[in-house]
């Protein structure tokens, strides 16, 4: 599971591989689509990228030696998404910076509950986060991945998954409770 799926030989697949892939990997298509949808912020682009990732996973299927098929697939999906972003929206990846966790006033659970109850608002807030924060949240909260799985999918050390999530959640809270400039002007 470690390392990228690149650089290994491309396998030639037979009917038996096809059946195994159908059984082990294809059931995780929704997970693949959901991750790429949130990384790319577009359903249409995610369809293409998820399909490409699935085909890539298939080509490298001989390199999958059992274990967590979902995490194995999501790792490939993530790599495919970043390659796509680098090519099509490099600016989005450049705006990212590793921010220290700044102390901030706690937002009350009630405030958050109200702000978070609106799907659109929550989705918009999530989309304002840099991809690397967005992905840990999606993997943890929507996909229910363990820290170990998140580490293997995102290639960040397992010891830093917890702090990555802490930062991501803090950013999401901020994005959710501070209205965006557009929102602020709309409310005027």
């Amino acid at each position, binding site marked *: 599971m470690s390392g990228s799926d690149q650089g290994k030989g491309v396998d*030639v697949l037979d009917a038996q591989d096809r059946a195994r892939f159908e059984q082990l990997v294809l059931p995780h298509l929704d997970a693949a*689509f*959901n991750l790429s949808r949130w990384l790319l912020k577009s359903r249409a682009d995610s369809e293409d990228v*998820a399909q490409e990732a699935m085909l890539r996973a298939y080509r490298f299927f001989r390199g999958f030696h059992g274990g967590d098929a979902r995490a194995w697939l999501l790792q490939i999906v993530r790599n495919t998404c970043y390659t796509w972003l680098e090519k099509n929206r490099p600016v989005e990846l450049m705006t990212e910076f590793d921010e220290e966790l700044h102390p901030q006033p706690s937002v009350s*659970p009630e405030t958050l509950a109200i702000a978070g109850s609106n799907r659109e608002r*929550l989705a918009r807030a999530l989309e304002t986060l840099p991809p690397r924060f967005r992905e840990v949240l999606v993997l943890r909260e929507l996909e229910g991945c363990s820290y170990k799985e998140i580490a293997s999918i995102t290639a960040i050390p397992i010891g830093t998954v917890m*702090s990555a999530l*802490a930062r991501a*959640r803090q950013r999401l809270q901020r994005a959710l409770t501070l209205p965006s400039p557009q929102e602020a002007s709309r409310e005027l």
Partner: protein
Amino acid sequence: MNCDFTRTVLHGYLDGELDATRAAEFEHHLETCRECTTALGSEESLRSSLQRTGLYENAPVGLRTKIRASLDAATTSPARIRIPAWRWFAVAATILVIASVSWFSWQRPGKDNASAAPFTVAEIIDAHVRSLQPGHLTDVASTDQHTVKPWFDGKLAFVPPVKDFADEGFPLIGGRLDVLGGQNVAALVYSRRKHIINVFVMPTKEPDTPIHPPGLRQGYQWRHWRRQGMEYCAVSDVSDSDIYELAQLIYQ
């Protein structure tokens, strides 16, 4: 806001990723730290929002189908590469056997041990292509069957049946002598919407056959049949339905 636990450990606790000792330690801390208690409540609220508002987006129905198709494509074609060399020989041998069997049945459906095929597909195509080169199409250019038929007389050891089918959309434009399989044959030239159809005719001792299914090679199609002591092969780049139509006209 100076509680160190809030920064990270709280999240490990929230996610159930702390070991038992650290979890107990944090729970003990929660009893006295209001800040962490509030923060934990906020995080739990946020989590339940994320999970309850339907942010998870399933793949569109059609995507699965599309992916299955591309997987199938990736399976069948490269899979052949894995076939070991000896199998290739087996495959080649099988093809050869099938080809020769079809060839012989193409030549004569009867199981008699008659002579070998009088010509090959390659020869027919070559002859057809050659005829399309300037000045090679016809030795006698005439739309009149009564001119074309006598022209063959004396040049061949047989008299090919010659008919014009202009009314049916296949005007006769002439005839010429050609050689197939070392044998002199008559070539009747018909046109079909500016395309050329060559019909090769030679005598045979084999019994009649129906019009055989079409053959296709290099973009040319042909139909072959035997009728009343004559071997026929119509070849052209027009569609098979046109060739078949002409073959039926000649067959009658």
